[in-house]
């Protein structure tokens, strides 16, 4: 009698254990999916103050929102977009909305890295996303960069995104300097791309040239 009772109790504990382990494994899988699933980033349309609607990244004349004006597309002989000193590069990125419960599990964090061939590199965080609080999946992030005076050169612009924890912007900047500062200008862009793509696979890349003088009719 006692032996049967002990056996029943043992079976109950085994069943409970199996159910518990399965539930934990299920939760772990859901968590893994929620935090590790890819972020399908894309460049979005922007409504410029002069009435144009354009796909970003786009070239804008002035940085004041009420005076901004879309400039015509300007490209080098190799097809790379060209930005003159003083032009503004306008950028808008986003990702599709997700199922109702998924955003509760993970926020998205963004980082923008600009690596010129020979000038100093820059690492930016998007203001809208907050540096530490992150952004909702369907939140669009806008960024404007005024092209500074500098040499004619190619530039890599990389928008990076990830879930769960923010990027360590200072650490990434430090690592990039350590890796790139000793390299020849021609190698900096490809090396930076390789280094950054190891940090996250969720990224958008835009390569463009900057020029001391505007090469296309731009600001009359």
């Amino acid at each position, binding site marked *: 009698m006692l032996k049967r009772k002990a056996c029943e109790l043992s079976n109950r504990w085994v069943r409970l254990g199996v159910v518990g382990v399965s539930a934990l494994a299920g939760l772990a899988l859901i968590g893994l999916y929620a935090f590790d699933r890819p972020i399908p980033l*894309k*460049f*979005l*349309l922007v*409504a410029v103050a002069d*009435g144009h*609607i354009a796909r970003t990244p786009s070239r804008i004349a002035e940085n004041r929102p009420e005076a901004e004006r879309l400039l015509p597309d300007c490209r080098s002989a190799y097809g790379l977009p060209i930005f003159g000193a003083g032009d503004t590069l306008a950028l808008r990125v*986003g990702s599709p909305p997700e199922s109702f419960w998924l955003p509760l599990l993970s926020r998205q964090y963004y980082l923008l890295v600009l690596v010129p061939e020979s000038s100093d590199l820059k690492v930016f965080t998007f203001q809208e996303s907050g540096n530490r609080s992150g952004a909702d999946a369907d939140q669009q992030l806008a960024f404007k960069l005024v092209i500074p005076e500098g040499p004619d050169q190619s530039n890599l612009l990389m928008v990076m995104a990830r879930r769960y924890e923010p990027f360590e912007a200072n650490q990434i900047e430090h690592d990039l300097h350590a890796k790139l500062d000793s390299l020849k200008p021609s190698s900096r862009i490809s090396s930076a791309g390789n280094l950054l793509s190891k940090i996250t696979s969720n990224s958008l890349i835009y390569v463009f040239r900057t020029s001391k003088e505007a090469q296309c009719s731009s600001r009359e």
Partner: protein
Amino acid sequence: MFVARMRTIGLIFAIGVALASAVRALPAIAAPAESGRSYEFPFERGADRLKSDSRTSDQVVSVRDLFDHHGWRPELKFRIEAALPGGCEASLGCAEAHLLQHRVQALLAAIEADGSAIAFAPGNLWWGGASRANAGDDDVLRIFVARGLDPPRNPRCSADIEIADPELPGIDAGGASPWVLANPAQAVAVSPNARMRFVKRDPAKRLQISLSDPQGLSDIGPAGASEEFGLVFSGDSLAIQIEDPSSADRAAQGGCLFRFERWHR
């Protein structure tokens, strides 16, 4: 016995197909192509948030479909507009224009939320203001079509094809003709209600038209100076070739081909 029954079934099927084609052609005859479809988006008063209801969601999906199929066409320019105070429509310098810009951005976000990027021809999408007197409700964005650049005409063709499609938004500047030149370079998506007409470059010439499908056109009959047809799809695409029987160079005319795809399947 069996053969007779199969014949009867075949006959019923053929009549059914013929009836279906006729019914599909009916809207093309009945629908006034002059009034384009209305695409309207109500916003919360004084805010840049789209009112969320099922009609707005349906409209967003429709506009996504519209831009997906027609955003590349240089002959069409899409304009998103709303009422603005007098004097501000041109300069877009007032506070209301600033709010309108934010609303347009919110609408674009909703349209682009799902799916891949929409391929617009450069300069094909604009936003702006209409004078309050003509625009109606201040808190509603509307989409209109303005004429863009005519598509490159095929020099081998003795005629062009023009399309009036009531599923496209109304052409702005009230009373403007709804007819738009079809692009011979790329297949144009048309709804089942679209009408077409041939515009001969030499009105005296007799042209020969061949179709990829014998049921491709429904003759609506003469309207004004030209004859109009409804485009009837039995498949997903339709090709129309125009030939000039009087021309000696028949081989060169093989290139005068217009292609259409069914839109709103």
